[in-house]
């Protein structure tokens, strides 16, 4: 039956219960509850990554539509929040990469073997930057590097969670984080006024 009456959604249901209901039958009200739970986080993430509120508005709209269309593919192995973040990061990155030229040295980084640098290199420098300086460094950093640093130091995602979001292996994630920190530190040194 096309237009059968549906039971009212319970706003106390967990994300996973709501998604399971939505996978059984599409329902705008249930999706509305998920939207209300995640819209601020997704929007803020888009603002953080793009630094453009109008663009973040458009991207948030598209991300929720993408999530709705792909709900049937959510396999309940990860948290729904992680899945939404994964769409958010990847969609923002795709968009930014279309507008920014991707640095070619990212392409062959997976070919490297073991991480030859200590994992916490430049971490202390990065975390001791003044917030205004860090903001400037991040604005000049390539989108992929910026996303990684935000995931790790702003959202406190573990390496495992970043692996899920980006669909990469552990060594690739560690290598990318390390490279992102290195580039951030190089930019920081360039932005430092002479003699300070």
């Amino acid at each position: 039956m096309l237009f059968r009456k549906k039971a009212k959604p319970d706003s106390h249901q967990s994300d996973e219960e709501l998604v399971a209901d939505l996978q059984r039958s599409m329902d705008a009200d249930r999706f509305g509850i998920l939207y209300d739970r995640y819209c601020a986080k997704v929007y803020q993430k888009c603002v953080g990554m793009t630094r453009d509120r109008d663009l973040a508005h458009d991207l948030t709209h598209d991300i929720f539509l993408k999530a709705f269309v792909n709900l049937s593919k959510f396999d309940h192995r990860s948290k729904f929040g992680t899945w939404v973040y994964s769409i958010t990061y990847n969609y923002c990155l795709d968009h930014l990469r279309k507008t920014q030229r991707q640095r070619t040295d990212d392409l062959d980084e997976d070919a490297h073997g073991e991480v030859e640098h200590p994992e916490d290199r430049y971490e202390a420098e990065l975390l001791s930057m003044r917030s205004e300086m860090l903001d400037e460094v991040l604005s000049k950093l390539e989108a992929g590097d910026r996303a990684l640093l935000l995931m790790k130091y702003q959202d406190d995602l573990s390496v495992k969670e970043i692996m899920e979001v980006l669909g990469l292996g552990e060594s690739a994630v560690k290598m990318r984080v390390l490279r992102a920190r290195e580039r951030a530190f190089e930019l920081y040194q360039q932005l430092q006024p002479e003699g300070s």
Partner: protein
Amino acid sequence: MSENPFKIIRPTDQPPENLRKEVMGSVKLLMLLMRFMQLFMADYAMTLFENVRLTGKRDTRPSAAPPAPGSSTKDTPSS
């Protein structure tokens, strides 16, 4: 120990009011399109076309391919 500067610069903007309306409007439109897709997938459309063809056809004998438009047949009165 100083605070993590990444946390300090975290955006706190709230999404615009109209965004919810836009998203839910698009979601409802998508649902409508999906319903129509379901309708066609369930072969309702083919059943409908089949009925239209049968009621319009008097002759039940197996027939050859229909004549091409513009081609002359025996029934066509010659001028």
